[in-house]
């Protein structure tokens, strides 16, 4: 699968938010100024037009230490992507870089992916067509696939000056991450590498300074049973059932026709 991953070491992040602006700069995303949030954080979460948000969290740890935790919140590009699974139009797919991309032409804006997303990332953007009629498209970070194809790194990684965001070969990065984790644990005892195997890992791996729940991330996300039931059983079964019933009906029609020649009268039912 992807031999490159995006690695986010939040302990190196100094909150300059170049990533937020670089993303909009490259993807020509419109600005969405929000109401005053009560903190330095500009958006409550990522939206359809704001594909990464720098979260600020004034966290008083149980051991009394105070940390001001920053996180580059963005799509994690899960290997087992719940959004891809939920999409009825097969509009969401994995590229060879491991990035999960949404084909805007196929997306019908039904929002299944929005409900399904494990990390509450993908959202719907509303557009107006020529006749002024509104339509919606699901949008989220695509790991700058257009840049990756030209051999360039994602725009946020290119802008990040403390090397908190890096995009490099998977094995070297993860090895480096383990070493970094050992160093960082001294100040951040709960630091951990967040690459949840419940969804077979992600193409955007985090080194968090505290437990995932402190960042509002699920401790160990899995593809929900409901999605599995839905897409691996219900959907195929439904289609199969549809096929079976039609076959049964066709079978019935044929066999009735055959039996008819044998003189069974209509209604074929006698009673005792």
């Amino acid at each position, binding site marked *: 699968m992807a031999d490159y991953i995006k690695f986010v070491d939040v302990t190196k992040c100094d909150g300059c938010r*170049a990533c937020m602006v670089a993303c909009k700069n490259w993807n020509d995303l419109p600005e969405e100024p929000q109401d005053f949030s009560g903190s330095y954080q500009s958006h409550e979460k990522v939206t359809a037009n704001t594909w990464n948000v720098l979260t600020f969290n004034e966290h008083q740890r149980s051991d009394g230490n105070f940390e001001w935790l920053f996180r580059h919140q963005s799509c994690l590009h899960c290997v087992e992507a719940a959004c891809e699974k939920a999409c009825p139009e097969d509009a969401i797919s994995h590229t060879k870089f491991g990035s999960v991309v949404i084909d805007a032409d196929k997306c019908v804006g039904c929002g299944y992916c929005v409900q399904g997303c494990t990390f509450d990332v993908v959202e719907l953007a509303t557009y107006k067509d020529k006749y002024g009629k509104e339509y919606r498209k699901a949008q989220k970070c695509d790991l700058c696939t257009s840049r990756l194809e030209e051999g360039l790194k994602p725009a946020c990684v290119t802008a990040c000056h403390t090397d908190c965001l890096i995009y490099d070969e998977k094995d070297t990065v993860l090895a480096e991450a383990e070493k970094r984790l050992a160093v960082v644990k001294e100040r951040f005892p709960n630091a951990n590498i967040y690459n949840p195997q419940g969804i077979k890992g992600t193409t955007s791996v985090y080194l968090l300074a505290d437990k995932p729940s402190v960042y509002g991330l699920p401790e160990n996300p899995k593809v929900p049973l409901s999605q599995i039931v839905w897409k691996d059983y219900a959907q195929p079964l439904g289609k199969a059932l549809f096929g079976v019933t039609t076959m049964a009906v066709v079978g019935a029609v044929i066999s009735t026709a055959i039996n008819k020649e044998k003189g069974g009268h209509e209604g074929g039912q006698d009673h005792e």
Partner: protein
Amino acid sequence: MTNHWNDLQHANVLMIIGANPAENHPISFRWITKAKENGGKLISVDPRYTRTSQMADMYGQLRSGTDIAFIGGMINYVLENELYHKEYVANYTNAAYLVTDTYSFEDGMFSGYDEGKRSYDKTKWAFKTDEDGKVLTDPTLKDPNCVFQLMKKHFSRYDVDTVVGVTGTDKKMYLDICKTYGSTGEVGKAGTILYAMGTTQHTVGTQNIRSYAILQLLLGNIGIQGGGVNALRGESNVQGSTDFGLLYNNVTGYMKTPEATEVDSTYQGFLDRITPKAGYWVNTPKFYTSMLKSFYGDNATKENEFGYHYIPKLSAGKNYSFMRLFDAMYRGELEGLLLFGSNPAVGGPNARQEKESLSNLKWMVAVDLFETETSSFWQKEAGADPASIQTEVIFLPACASFEKEGSVTNSGRWMQYRWQAIKPKGESKADLEIVHMLARKLKDYYKNSSNPADLPMKAMTWDYGEHDHPDIDLVCREINGYDMKTKKQVKGFGDLKDDGSTCSGNWIYCGFYPEEGNLSKRRDSTNEGMSNFLNWSYAWPANRRILYNRASADLNGKAWSKDRVGIEWNALEGKWMGHDVPDFVVTKGPDDPTFKDPFIMIAGGKGAIYSTGLNEGPLPEHYEPFENPMLNSFSSVQFNPAVQFGEKEMNPQGDVSKYPIVATTYRLSEHWQSGAMTRSLPGLAELVPHMFVEISEELAKEKGIKNKDKIFVSSARGEIEAYAMVTKRFKPYKLKDKTVHQIGMPWHFGYKGIAIGATANHLTPHIGDANSSIPEYKAFLCDVRRA
């Protein structure tokens, strides 16, 4: 900066005090992070827990305006525990100098104070000299009158308990910081101090920096890799504009402006006054004459004292600095104001009152990219009544940095060229073009005037091409300077002459444009060593990247320690070698009697632990800010005795009884200065759309304020409304005998642009530093209540 950005990675300990580089100089953290990765320790000292503090290993909280107490305590700690670099202090600083007996220090006051004039007679602090003027020294540093002992005695009063009682820092953390930073005194170790407006914008701003210099000299941190006293300057070319003398008291290259006094009535008299007997400044006449030649060309002759009298002479002793300028405007003495990319209605102290004074102007010219609060001070939006304001305003649209060509000098003194990517937007023009067109129009007007008053305009040469757009290359050549006869570019300021045969617009830049070409355009980013990048652009002076780098070697020219090699004497080659341009004549060896000392600019070449140059004393002494919450614990002198007061009405003083909360202002990484260039950009207006004030949870509870409430902040000078951001990153101070709250707010906001909000500077005091007159934005008193 004495060093530069890439050099930060070589530091063992970085102390960031009075600065917030993670937010205001974000990319510096690329190199600070590298320093941390090499095992370096980062200390953040700030009234507020900033993004820099989050990246730091140690965070020390301190009340705004108590830097000298904080650093004074560290100096005392370093001296008491003998952590200082003995050989460095003995040989490279003026620790051994003896001071005359007329010097004394009693209860916060130095000798020689004149109450009326609020100034000192500095001769009282002079060094003791023998009959032919040579300074007497005691190399053993034992003599009670030697600088070392005087300093020891002075700072012995800064014991830890008194200090933390004034600064409010946690005692254990304070000792930890002293120990960690003190460790850089060890040979081979390097500590760097990064500071910015948090240090300078006080009534004791200059002495704050002096205390850093003393600490760094004691620890032997000046002139070495990863060391230095580094000012993080806030604008792309504030370094350049200061170098080019756009200040009332400086002409280019930090040379003095003449005054209307008997002494200065002749050029020679003026030169004798401003040229010291020793130190590199002895060459001032060469630089000054060359500058005059660049102004007046052939009209500057030996006979008319090279056009010396064409330059304006200041009224003797009169202060023309920014705040006094607005005092004059308030009194109606100013008729015209020219603003080139400047927005005082948001950036100036007591901005509301300054904005009112603008209406006393007859005319104003504003040159900017966006409509600024200052250029539209007459509009209803500004709270003004247009009909009653008779000022005629002309707004000239300037173009952006990448729509024109030119060079800017960054904090590390790198003069970097930048090219034009696109033609100016609409009808906007480059400032170069605007001043060129204006100058040609004025020259034309005064061309055949017979009035002697117009002689300067007629004598001023302006030959940068005939059409609207000037030939920038000619301007660059003139700045560097050339031989008047051969028109050949001068190789370096060493070749400038005082006989009028050479010209140079700015001596410190002389050498950036030799015959081979404009070195500021160089883009070779190979790292020859020490990350000095000698072939990338050009650093003044003489492309030197680390100032006073002679101090990186011991007395016999060898590096203090193997793992920090700077410039070393290579006996075989007979010259100094290393990855930087030596700070002195390359071929003068360590044993050359005529040259011994690294601090080439100062007479005697020794680092100034004791300096007679400043107005309020040879050694830094803590005084409380203009508006302070508690009495001075170090002496009975409350306020800096040498600070001059300006216009009374411009500077009402708030009393702690009415305004109990300490307040400060600061900047954010998402906005810039008065916000004119960022609050009009959708991308940045989205990141920080609202003006806010950060208050501690404790203060919020006391005042019944919830997060995101609208609140009023008031001071003796004004009141503003903004959102409350209740945070854990401000904590009340437990000072000697009371608890004091502190709040802080960004000062970027104004009523123009996309993201608009209240202007913090409506609250700040209109009083400034005793030497530089920089306003005291960083420490004043206010009160807070719910809207």
